[in-house]
């Protein structure tokens, strides 16, 4: 079963003549274990595509199926449940809650799903181990480095074992070494757990770490992901 099936997605902001089409008929499919990079200039619709695929926003037209669940039929609660159980998110600016420790931040999706605090803390500890943060569990976000913040965000994104991981410029706010380390972690998770990764980036080097590249311009795919499958070596 595909982790993500997006077909002919369209997103128009505003109405009528003043409406702006951010995505104009994009299709993409990710199987478990796939890693696809979306590249293109600013304003080409990368982030919008990720938001639509992750159930953060609703398309104007087209369909999205995540891990066998069709998003079109879901209400707000359904989308929330989908994000909580089947999708993980990593963003450029980390987006950790400054008022929670790293352990609590990592465990948050589980806690929101009703898992007990004790079990959440246990799972957070093992996820933190996996990203090399076991020594920082009780620190607040303001007390750790940018690389550690993003590794925490990655741990939070996968703690609930999602089928799809959405990463929007995951290295965009990191130096080269930290960026590489985060990418290493993403690829390892991708290969070890089979989570499908859809990441958006400006950075060609980052894109090169993906299995496939989907190039976008003006809301359209100019080079489909399948075209790049054979050309790219796995990391």
């Amino acid at each position, binding site marked *: 079963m595909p982790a993500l099936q997006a077909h002919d997605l369209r997103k128009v902001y505003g109405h009528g003549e003043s409406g702006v089409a951010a995505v104009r008929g994009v299709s993409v499919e990710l199987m478990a274990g796939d890693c696809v990079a979306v590249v293109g200039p600013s304003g080409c619709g990368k982030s919008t595509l990720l938001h639509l695929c992750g159930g953060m926003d609703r398309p104007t037209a087209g369909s999205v199926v995540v891990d066998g669940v069709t998003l079109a039929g879901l209400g707000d609660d359904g989308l929330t*449940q989908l994000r909580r159980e089947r999708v993980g998110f990593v963003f450029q600016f980390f987006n950790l809650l400054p008022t929670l420790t790293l352990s609590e931040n990592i465990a948050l999706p589980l806690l*929101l799903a009703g898992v007990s605090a004790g079990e959440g803390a246990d799972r957070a500890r093992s996820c933190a181990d996996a990203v090399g943060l076991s020594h920082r569990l009780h620190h607040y976000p303001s007390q750790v480095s940018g690389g550690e913040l993003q590794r925490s965000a990655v741990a939070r994104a996968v703690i609930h074992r999602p089928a799809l991981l959405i990463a929007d410029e995951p290295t965009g706010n990191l130096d080269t070494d930290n960026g590489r380390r985060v990418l290493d972690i993403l690829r390892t998770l991708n290969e070890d757990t089979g989570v499908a990764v859809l990441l958006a980036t400006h950075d060609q080097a980052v894109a090169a770490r993906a299995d496939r590249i989907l190039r976008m311009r003006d809301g359209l795919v100019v080079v489909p992901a399948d075209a790049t499958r054979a050309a790219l070596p796995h990391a």
Partner: protein
Amino acid sequence: MASWSSLPTRLARRCLTRDPVTLFRQFIVRALVRDPRRSLATVAGLTLGVAVVIAIRLANAGSIRGFEAALDVVAGQTSLEIVGAGVGVPDGQLEHLGWLRDYGLVSPLIARTARLRAPDGTEQPLQVLGIDVLRDRPFREYQLVEFARGGRDPSAQELLALLLDSRSVVLTERFATRHGIELGSAVELVIGDRVHDALVRGLLLDEGPARVVDGQLALLDVAVAQLLFDRIGWLDRVEIQLHDATAIDEAEQAIAARLPDGLRVQRPAQRGRQVEKMLAAFHFNLTALSYIALVVGLFLVYNTVAVSVISRRREIGTLRALGATRRRLLGLFLGEAALLAGLGTAVGVPAGWLLAQGAIALTSTTVNALYITSAATVPPLAWFDLLLAGGVAIPLALAAAAIPALEGARVTPIAAVRGADRFASDQRQRMGRVALVAAVLFGLAGWLSTLDPVGGLPLYGLGAALAVIGGGAALVPLLLTWLRRVGRRAFVRWFKVEGMLAHANLSASVGRLTVSVAALVVSLAMLAAIAIMVGSFRDTVTYWVGQTLRADLFVSAAGRGPAGPSPTISSDAERRVAAHPSVVAIDQFQSVDLPYGADGDLIILGAGNFEVLLEHGGLLFKEPESGRDAMARAVGADAVVVSEAFALKQRVAVGETIALETPQGARPFRVEAIYYDYSSDRGLVVMDRSTFERHYGAQRPAGLTVYLDPAADPVTVREELLAGLGPDHRLFINTNATLRAEVLRIFDATFAITYALEAIAIFVAIMGVATTLLTLVLERREELAMLRLVGAGRAQIRRMVVLEAAMLGVVSQALGLAVGVVLSVILIYVINVQSFGWTIQFDLPIWFLVRSTVLVAVATAVAGLYPARVATGFAGTGAR
């Protein structure tokens, strides 16, 4: 940042140039219009605060306005008046006062109240003037309808002819029309317990004095009035209209020097001043309470400006980057506060007038029961009210807005672009200094509590209360910090992930929350203190009533008021009551108002049958311990027992001698005992009836306290007495049970306005909590969006914010209760004693406080619903 991206560069240029008004309109006014709910909530809070202040001012003024209006009617053109000691001016003195004519025209007067039974079946109160027709005309303008239509004034002889008949009465045209009374028709005048047949012989035109008391005025001949009011041989006062009104000071001094003992000269306005003084403490306490709502309302201004600053940090940063000075930004945010306060004032002042209609109804029960009987009406709004409201609200609003406005002005372009680290900034709490401030304020409160009142007003006591409130507010950051340290585990255990998030959010916002929580703490502390004080007071009064109201029946005449001449009970009625076979003993009670001391405080001089009281009554003595023995010593002697309020206010101790004015001049009376009394805060001096009659002459009693055979049923005896008295006597007979119920009814009515004012303050404070939460929600919109992304449902976000609100309520209530208990001690033992002179036994109304805690938690949780709704809206793509 859609709002900023839409800001045209024109705006940026404006801020660099000279057009602050345009910038204010574009940057502040548009933002207020864009967020109408928050703007309206702030203006509504301020409106309520201003309205309460104005309402209490108008209600206070209105409560004595009716009295003063009546005073004006009676005074007319009178320059000075001669009054006697308590019981009036003896008729016989007049012939020795012929020299008064050297100074001006002289006229005797009886001024009393009566009731008139109209043909429409209603019974109406009336101000009755007993006048000497031949002498009174220059004093008051009377236009009689029948003569006015003929285009001429009545001659003195014609007026004399009108009133000479002992059944004649002159009413006002307004009153007659309203109640269907025609010239020449028969009416019934109820005076004391007697009903007199009267004929309406004239109607006063609806103008001048006839209008002032809404037409409730009647004229009788002075001799007839003396007869009907049991005042034969006495006048209420003698009025003087000076030949030279400009030489009033000299005339007053000269007349005072020549008057015999027992008489005084005063200006008519003096009586108004006495009433104002009597009510001063009551009005002062209400005014102080009314300002709490306004102060709490100002916290809303703080919050609104804080939201303004927080939600637009990037815009502010951009303006700064484009060259806007800090001073200009400060001006913009202070201008926002001034605009909100101006709107609150503009709406609050007329709203205050409307609110005053309700407030005066609530206060008039107390004023009528304890001070003066008068028709209370709300005076019209004056420019002074607008100036007062604006002069108080706008500067205070600017002060409240100064902190967030300065914060806004201090935003740097870099900080705005990067986003400020809220969590880090809130860590900078200087707890040591805060604790020191709290300790100093509590110490100050302790010291101020030991100081004496100023001019009968508890100014230092109020200062002590303010210091306790300030100390309590200073404890808020300490409490929130303590909660941050210790509460987390409990919150997680009780409320799961929502509890963890709510606790974390509140812990991170101690600085932001302090002001709002302090406002709520202040309001709740006041509520707790007032509840404890009123509860304690009620218990004390209930106990006092149980101990002192021992008689079975209480008989009084119709129209009896708390001040001024009381209607009397006729000897015939008294005889009939005494003749009932179940009646064991009767105490005839008499009371008159008497000026006392150098300040002329209007005290109550009472006379009762001490032997009956000793055998059947139950006065509670404060000192000496053997109060009954002391009272026994006062029987027939020149000795008195005094109420606690009198002893405290006049600084009189047992064994001392006080000087009381009598018709023969000031006479010394030994104070034998001090007793507890809660019926009046004016101070009572009570002497044995035989002593009273020896000094003040025989007077009909104003009330009868009746003790029955223990086997008799008071309700049955009451019915038998009323039946026996027949329609010719109008007496009120209360049984012990109904009088106790009446006492507690008046008590509860007295404090109804207190609770009403507090309820408004708490409502405004809870609005403050709601706007603070809104501030926090706006501040962490990206975090909330993130929460939604990682799987938090709308219901979870909503629960989290509502939980935060409820937590704030519970924390505020906890501290509010603690501060409230301290405050209640000051209210009970300092402010109450200094204002009213009453001892109240401290009692904690546990169940009320438990109920109010639950109510506050629920109310604040409900107040959190709107911020919660806003919080659930930050879903989806807010994260970057």
